[in-house]
């Protein structure tokens, strides 16, 4: 059984954003990162032994850098798919049948 792409993408989006319906169900969710929740679960036992060399100075800068990461990735993948599809013989050109122009260059045919 084959599913069309738009249906797969719609379900992918639905699953990816499923958490947003959670709030509507009355659960007050904070949507904190699960990596951070794990650190919280470690509690007092874990103290970081090493600090990051550099931290984004604000949440805005951090979201900007994440967007940069996604943009680099999207541009790379999109370039390759676009380039490979463009390399195929154009589908538009193939939909036209060859036309003969001989009748225009041979006036005698027309006058007979």
């Amino acid at each position, binding site marked *: 059984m*084959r*599913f069309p*792409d738009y249906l*797969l*993408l719609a*379900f*992918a*989006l639905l*699953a*990816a*954003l*499923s*958490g*947003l*319906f*959670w*709030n509507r169900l009355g*659960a*007050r*969710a904070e*949507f*904190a*990162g*699960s*990596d951070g*929740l*794990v*650190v919280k*679960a*470690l509690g007092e036992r*874990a103290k*970081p*032994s*090493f*600090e*990051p*060399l*550099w*931290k*984004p100075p604000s949440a805005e800068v*951090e979201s900007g*850098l*994440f967007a940069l*990461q*996604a*943009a*680099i*990735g*999207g*541009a*790379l*993948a*999109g*370039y*390759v*798919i676009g380039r*490979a*599809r463009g*390399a*195929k013989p154009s589908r538009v050109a193939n939909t036209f049948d060859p036309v003969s122009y001989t009748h225009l260059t041979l006036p005698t045919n027309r006058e007979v």
Partner: protein
Amino acid sequence: MHISEGFLPASHAVGWTLVSAPIAAWSVRRVSRALRQEPRARLELAAVGGFAFALSALKLPSVSGSCSHPTGSGLGAILVGPAKMPAIGLAVLLFQALLLAHGGLTTLGANLFSLSVAGPLVSWTTFSLCGKAGLPSEAGIFSGTALGNLATYAVTAAQLAFAYPDPHSGFSAAFVKFASIFALTQIPLAISEGLLTVVVAKALRRARFSIAEASS
């Protein structure tokens, strides 16, 4: 799946680095050799590397009320094989550790192992088994990607449980505790990543990339 900077005891940080460093070095050599010898490899690696870069930046809200992100490594594991994924994962994790304070240098070895060794191996094995069972390639891509995603998080939970066992019941209780933080969040995201990867793999196939190469 990112264990934060400094949160592994020194012996574990060194241990995971020793495990992952040779794998990463071998993978980087495989990738650079492929780039030199196969002109097509450059495009394939750019496509799967770009996909991994983009997807691991997307933090998505999930049903447990917390956020997590897809791994983006199932596509690459299936398309170019698991051997080339540690090199790609290294680029992703270094970007995030150095620029975003997400993950870290002391936890790079552990994170590389879960994201780029364990996850891709599970993805590729699942995909190959589905192919052998005669299932359509879409089923293999979906289940391979979703299971690889879950495997990455299961390995992270195991690494944490290994470093911080429960004082009373040891490793297994700690593993259940950490895995339960990830599990509910990660299941919808694994399904989502599986579906998206099917669409992207189909697009790549239409663009004349062969996805059967990985299974041979």
